[in-house]
């Protein structure tokens, strides 16, 4: 692909402030979300106790007895911090927001259904877990899920759709039928059945979703390859003795990237929405994984506690909005018509 075209597109994208800033914000938040364990956590960053330095955040499990705490199991760093205030020489550095997304009423001091307050910014849920912490962790998981899902989907979509478009004929016809049949399958069924056999995990869910979702990209790529195949450069490449594989992936694919790139953000939006839906129904990631869908579910069971509904919906809304803005920008940069499109 021509470098200068891409550079021009990038420039164009940068000039579209809304999309560009959305990209920066989202990227920033997403990268930041990988640091969540040291920003939002109940495990201390550094503890100085009796002249020695400990780094629980790196080391992981440190028993409470290490710090002279009379608790079985892991140290309670928040209590430790307030206790050390009176002990010169000993100190604890906690993460900025010292609550973990998993700690519930089991941890003494946590109460369920706390409305938003200074210590729990968005309140607590029905088992006393911090809503803000869960919301942030869920952000990371949602985006990661949607990104991986989209990439995997596209790989399948390109492979299958490309082959269909390139070879055409019976192969194409056969796969069209397969896709039609496949797309009529009630997906929830497949998920219920599979999750009854294996415990759903992040990658298993991606696998299941890919089973159903590869179709939309396939259609697009089939059309792209079909069109490109008729062009002169393909014939030229073939006449030079290039293998089909080479022609498909070295020549045609780079010329068919536009739909892939312009559709990408919208596929991510769909991926996030899908995970939320699945978690809401209880067939998503295993608990206690923080997820917006699960939060929404318990929120709707307790609709008098508005923060439990608003937090996940708002978080999801802003995330999706950012991605839609990016998508709009990308589309405009690649397809210089002057109006908005939404997929």
């Amino acid at each position, binding site marked *: 692909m021509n470098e200068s075209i891409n550079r021009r597109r990038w420039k164009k994208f940068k000039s579209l402030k809304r999309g560009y800033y959305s990209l920066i914000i989202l990227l920033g938040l997403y990268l930041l979300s990988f640091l969540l364990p040291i920003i939002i956590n109940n495990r201390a960053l550094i503890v100085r106790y009796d002249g020695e330095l400990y780094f629980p955040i790196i080391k*992981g*499990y440190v028993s409470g007895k290490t710090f002279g705490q009379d608790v079985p199991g892991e140290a309670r760093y928040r209590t430790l911090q307030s206790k050390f205030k009176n002990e010169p020489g000993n100190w604890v550095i906690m993460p900025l927001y010292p609550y973990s997304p998993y700690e*519930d009423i*089991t941890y003494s001091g946590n109460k369920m259904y706390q409305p938003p307050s200074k210590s729990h910014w968005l309140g607590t849920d029905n088992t006393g877990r911090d809503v803000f912490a869960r919301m942030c962790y869920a952000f990371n998981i949602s985006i990661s899920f949607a990104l991986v899902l989209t990439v995997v989907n596209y790989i399948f979509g390109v492979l299958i759709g490309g082959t269909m478009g390139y070879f055409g004929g019976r192969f194409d016809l056969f796969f069209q039928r397969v896709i039609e049949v496949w797309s009529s399958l009630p997906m929830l069924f497949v998920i219920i059945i599979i999750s009854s056999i294996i415990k759903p995990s992040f990658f298993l869910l991606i696998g299941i979703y890919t089973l159903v979702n590869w179709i939309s990209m396939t259609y697009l790529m089939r059309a792209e390859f079909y069109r490109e195949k008729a062009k002169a450069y393909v014939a030229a490449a073939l006449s030079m003795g290039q293998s089909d594989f080479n022609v498909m992936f070295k020549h045609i694919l780079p010329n068919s990237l536009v739909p892939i790139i312009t559709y990408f953000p919208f596929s991510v939006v769909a991926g996030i929405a899908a995970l939320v839906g699945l978690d809401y129904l*209880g067939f998503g990631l295993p608990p206690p994984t923080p997820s917006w869908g699960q939060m929404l579910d318990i929120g709707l069971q307790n609709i008098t506690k508005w923060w439990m509904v608003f937090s996940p919906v708002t978080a999801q809304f802003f995330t999706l909005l950012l991605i839609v803005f990016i998508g709009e920008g990308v589309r405009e940069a690649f397809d210089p018509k002057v109006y908005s499109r939404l997929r």
Partner: protein
Amino acid sequence: MKMKIYLLGLACVLFISCGGDGKNNKKMTPQKSESKKDQSTSAKDGGYGFEDLAEGLGFQTYKWSKEKDGTYFGDPKAKKGGTLNYIHSLFPRTMRIIGQNSSQVLNSRTIASLCYESLLSQHPTTLDFIPKLATHWHISDDKMKFKFRINPDARWWDGMPVTAEDVVATWDLRMDETILSPFEQMTYGKFERPVAESKYIVSVKANTVNWRNFLYFAIMKLHPNHILKELDGTAFLEEYAFSMIPGTGPYFIPEENIKNQESYTFERREDYWDKDSPFSQHMFNFDKIKVSVVKDNDALQFEKFKKGEQDIFNVVRSRRWIEETDFEATQKGWMKKQRIFSEKPAGTSGYYFNMREWPFNDKRIRYAFCYLYDREKMNREMYYNEYGMMNSLYSGTVYENPNNNKFKYNPEKAVQLLKEAGYTSRNSDGWLVHEKTGRVLSFTIITQKTSAYMITPVQQMLKEYGMDMQIQFIDYNTMIKNVNARNFNVCMLAYSGLIYPNPESSLRSTLADQDDNNNVWGFKSDRVDELLDEYDICFDQKRRIEIIQEIDGIFNEVHPIAFSIARNYSRMMWWDKFGYPDWMLSRYVGEYWDAFYYWWIDDEKVDRLDDAMQNGKQLPIMPIDMKYWPAYLLELAS
């Protein structure tokens, strides 16, 4: 295009064919029962005058008396009339009480109890047998043959007399495999076919000696022979799926009152054959009992109750009880809310371990789980201290072994036990690792999404001490399948309790290695097997209590379950317009449906409530705990 049009046509066929379903319009309006009395049957054969011969023939009966029975069969203050509205979360899958799909709680509590009757029934407070369709009964010396004398006054809704043939026909129906309810054949296959010895006397012989046999047969709900004789099992299933086969009970449901998936309304029968007997004259007071359906939406149901579309409401979750029942209507006493204590068996609920497999084949791990499972904390933090702790298979009943280990949160003991079991150190994730095998102590609990809020705190409690409990959400059917195929580590189940315990099905050793039965945990014990054998043929209630207590003790030593919490009361709310007996709900049932049988509309209270609501007046508020039965028990003991 041609294909499309063909399929379009198919669609039309589908929808047209929905319309054409002819409805079975056979109306079932009950006729006035015949007042003619049957004088042709001699007293010896059970006709009028049998009462005088009964004792000589070895028959026994139970006579109502004011001092003994007081208000236990309804309060004399009760008045007939009015409608009771109740909302349930399910519509019955059939209106039948026998056969496929009929064994739902809903069917047995409402339809079976209000519309159909059995030969005898049980005293709500003492559990003695009392006459119903039969006035007298006789048990042979070997306790295997029973005779019943049917009341010549008993009438089906259509006016036909109840006879011995009805008992035989009902037994035949229940034994018919084509009614697709194998439970019936398992229960009634324990008897030989009943024999109609005369018009009113029926006898039946049990195949084995078992103290339960008489109970089972006596409380078998009857259907009329004159209808059944023209039906076989399949036809019965089809014809009476959503219409009522005639019964003898005080209520019936006219066919136009059955609105599938929406509601059904019971109507009281003025010509109920037993309406003047002391056992039922003050019961069954509402003219209509309407059961509407709101599916799967507890919040909506509660809203409807608050708007007065429902009269009584049974509060299941503590949070609602504590946080959402404090509003104008309850503060001003227009709406009553009470915890009504009873001797209702609490059932068995908690975490069921699969003792067939690692890690719960090790008693120390089971014990450690129980010591780490801080139910008191959960009760305190999540359930508003509303519950008691369950420490027995028979919690809240006389069968509970008082010496059971009452597990309390005790991490030191747990850690000690885990150490003994070989889990001495933790890996970097904080999970316990076995010192020899290096295996991480990690297992999976299968559960439904709706239970998640009860389980995640336990998960955190175990995590503290390095036990890794993974949660797997699956749907109900899959969960049951997995439990029945013993394909689980631990699962959370709640079994309802029985007034007469039946440990056979869940504790018998031979069942431990079979699938699809209630021995979920894989419990085996020779001593318990011995006791079970003795229990079945023991006719002495005192000894039976001893047996069950010993079984309970042995069970608790093995401890295949982490008991959770127990509730020995009902949390009820109702609009203050009802009258009820002093004890409100009966001793052993103790649930809201008792209101269907014993409560009535109190006109004075209705006026008072109207007045109070219009003028914002205060009505008296009762103390929240209603402890008639605990007090009764104390009095019995003293």
